[in-house]
């Protein structure tokens, strides 16, 4: 580029324009190559916490899709492996760090939610090793047999996602996370979702589903729920307020709670940053069917943290609604106009694609891509410092 500049001085105006566009293309090429080099240096670690049966796997599929390519179990390995690998992301399930298998938990009378059933020392050591660029031999918890299977080899990816019940429970593991998300499903919605999931199953009844939720609740409240205060983003799923008395779990009120003041994460906002806004997008420009759509945006406080809150109640019927809403949101970290809508349309068959769960999961996916790119760019800009780390 320096030699090019010297040449430029003698160039005609027209040619100069041509040349700058070429230089820009060269800059793009070089940035993509430095992107690859620096990726080998450090793995970005994301934590996702949620209860069993609360849509973690759908979220994971949306997240990996933002980075492109499909996520698949490790090739030729254990068919019951919980790991998903794509070009950019590797998702590991924290159940693999159970210290007690199913029989062990029964003997001791503890659930999988109980910290005593989990090996946080190993979890910390292995996540730390991945972050330092070292491959690990991670155990496999087999959900069908309830046994701990022989370990599988995990190579350090560009992005490691640890998903499960306890990603933010242990302070050492928590400190390794570059970003953390908590999926907070209200009891009514959890019950409705589990009915949808289990009612057809032989042996299950309303009573057994209720009993299972009730029996696990004390441990859930004691060990899982408190993690949400550490999360950088929380997605709350509640029954709708648009239909009085509705708790079927079909129409949902979903809230995206985003921590303020983080270096690589700028919360999404509606119309005007920091204002408090109620918005019903249905009217002259947009026809919505019953029960319509309602948005809320505003500053709030969450476990004494300053947060921004974006809420959507209701569901989409048509594409026009999605793109109309997207065009009024800012700080989405999209690469082109309509990317959120495109992502949702790509997976219209996933649960939640027509409501706030799909919308906010996709937005969080884009924010994670942005955070990753910022972190990588920073590492590339200061190679000396990165080497020291």
């Amino acid at each position, binding site marked *: 580029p320096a030699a090019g500049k010297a040449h430029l001085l003698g160039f005609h105006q027209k040619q100069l324009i041509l040349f700058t566009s070429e230089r820009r293309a060269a800059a793009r090429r070089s940035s993509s190559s430095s992107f690859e080099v620096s990726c080998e240096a450090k793995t970005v670690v994301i934590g996702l916490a949620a209860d069993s049966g609360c849509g973690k796997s759908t979220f994971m599929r949306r997240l990996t899709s933002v980075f492109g390519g499909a996520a698949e179990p490790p090739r030729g390995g254990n068919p019951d492996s919980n790991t998903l690998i794509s070009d950019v992301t590797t998702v590991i399930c924290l159940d693999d760090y159970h210290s007690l298998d199913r029989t062990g938990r029964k003997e001791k*009378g*503890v659930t999988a939610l109980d910290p005593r059933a989990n090996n946080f020392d190993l979890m910390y050591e292995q996540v730390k090793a991945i972050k330092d660029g070292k491959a690990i031999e991670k155990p496999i918890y087999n959900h*069908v047999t309830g046994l701990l299977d022989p370990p599988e080899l995990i190579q350090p990816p560009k992005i490691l996602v640890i998903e499960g019940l306890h990603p933010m429970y242990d302070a050492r593991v928590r400190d390794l996370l570059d970003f953390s998300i908590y999926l907070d499903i209200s009891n009514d919605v959890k019950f409705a979702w589990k009915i949808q999931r289990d*009612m057809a199953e032989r042996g*299950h009844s309303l009573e*057994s589903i209720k009993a299972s939720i009730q029996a696990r609740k004390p*441990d859930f409240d004691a060990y899982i729920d408190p993690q949400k205060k550490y999360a950088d983003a929380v997605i709350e799923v509640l029954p709708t307020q648009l239909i009085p008395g509705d708790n079927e779990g079909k129409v949902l009120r979903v809230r995206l709670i985003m921590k303020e003041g983080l270096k690589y994460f700028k919360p999404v906002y509606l119309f005007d940053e920091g204002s408090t806004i109620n918005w019903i997008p249905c009217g002259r420009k947009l026809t919505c069917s019953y029960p319509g759509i309602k948005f809320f945006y505003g500053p709030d406080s969450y476990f004494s943290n300053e947060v921004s809150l974006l809420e959507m109640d209701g569901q989409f019927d048509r594409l026009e609604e999605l793109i109309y809403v997207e065009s009024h949101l800012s700080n989405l970290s999209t690469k082109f106009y309509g990317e959120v809508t495109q992502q949702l349309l790509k997976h219209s068959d996933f649960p939640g694609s027509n409501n706030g769960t799909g919308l906010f999961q996709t937005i969080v996916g884009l924010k994670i891509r942005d955070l990753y790119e910022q972190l990588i760019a920073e590492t590339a800009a200061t190679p000396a410092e990165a080497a020291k780390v």
Partner: protein
Amino acid sequence: ALALVARSAPSTPPDIAAKVSESIKKAEEACAGENTEGECAAAWDEVEELSAAASHARDKLKENDPLENYCKDNPETDECRTYED
């Protein structure tokens, strides 16, 4: 309506389905006695774990497209050939 949806969706592989219903029976027994809080919770937790595994197994079957599976092994046949342009 719930029953209709259930019928059209793929059913759980029989071995997992049997494990789910067995675990429910055991959980109901484990919670019948007194002072069995821990055992009762652990038993219902097992039900949850197996129900989740059953649901994942059903999802896997749903993704199983007979033509896609055939084409993985036979990409050169008439029904599977695709051209980029």
